[in-house]
């Protein structure tokens, strides 16, 4: 099995599209093209053998039980601090 990644335009991230069954990379690319590239929807395709992918899906590691909201950008409100900094940076005659 081959996992197919596709890019819609140069510079876009490669996004997982799906998978194809093929005996080798050459035919996997042919089939990836048929499934994910024949309607001009892809700019670039990658095929990766499924065995080459190392997987992590352990909830203890990915979804810790304690509140870790401070690690997310939304967990720390800085709006009023930004406003105060902006006011300090603006010269008085422009205020």
């Amino acid at each position, binding site marked *: 099995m081959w996992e197919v990644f596709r890019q819609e335009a140069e510079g876009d991230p490669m996004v997982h599209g799906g998978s*194809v*069954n*093929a*005996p080798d990379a*050459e035919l996997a690319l*042919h*089939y990836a093209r*048929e*499934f994910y590239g*024949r309607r001009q929807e892809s700019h670039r395709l990658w095929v990766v053998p499924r065995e080459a992918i190392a997987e992590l899906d352990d909830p203890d590691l990915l979804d810790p039980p304690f509140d870790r909201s401070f690690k997310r950008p939304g967990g720390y409100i800085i709006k009023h601090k930004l406003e105060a900094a902006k006011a300090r940076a603006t010269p008085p005659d422009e205020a």
Partner: protein
Amino acid sequence: MTELDPATRDALAALILTVADDELVIGYWDSEWTGIAPMLEEDVAMSSVSQDEIGHAAALYAMLGELTGRDPDELAYAREPDAFRHAPLLDHPRTDWAFTIGRRYLYETADAARLQALAGSSYEPLAQLAAKMRREERYHLMHVDAWLRRLAAAGGEVRERLVAALERLGTDALGVLDAPDDEALLLSAGILPEPMASVRARWLERIGGPLGELDLPVPSGGPRPGGRRSHGPDFAWLHGEMTMVSRSEVGATW
């Protein structure tokens, strides 16, 4: 180019018809793999390649329509079997997968040599369409080449069937690049930039290497004369299949 005289125009129309019929008929034969190809992915690939071929035929019939005033749908679906002008290579049924791959290899490589020549035609619409078709045929060539190498390397019954198919089809494959009617007229108008015999020589030279490396038979012998003018019972059956819907209500629109 200047206005075509009637004889040259007829020769051009006959040439376009041979290419269009080749593409339509191989497209229909190979579309028979839809649903029964060796694996699901290949089913989609072969169906899509077949659809491409029928698309090329549609573009060629449309060009012929412009040239002769005939309706492209009528050209494709309202002619009797013996009015078709495809090469004898395409009179054989789909048979098995090795046969289909063997025939596709011979046809696609010959067609590539023909399109290369036609891309230099003085008849601008044909030159442009040939250039466009070549872009799509590149993938067809890669696809069939990948399969040919795998079947050749597989050994056993798989390889035997491939060798048998190539032996059976070699002579008829030469007929894809037989000289068209009134070739001299086409050559002097520049519609054909070179005689078909030299296109055929270039094709044989090009496939000699890969077939030799795989120790597979190379086309030889002489094509069946007049092979584009009469077609056997297998094509009569396919013709019945491919015209079934259009015959069910003549003139219907949708």
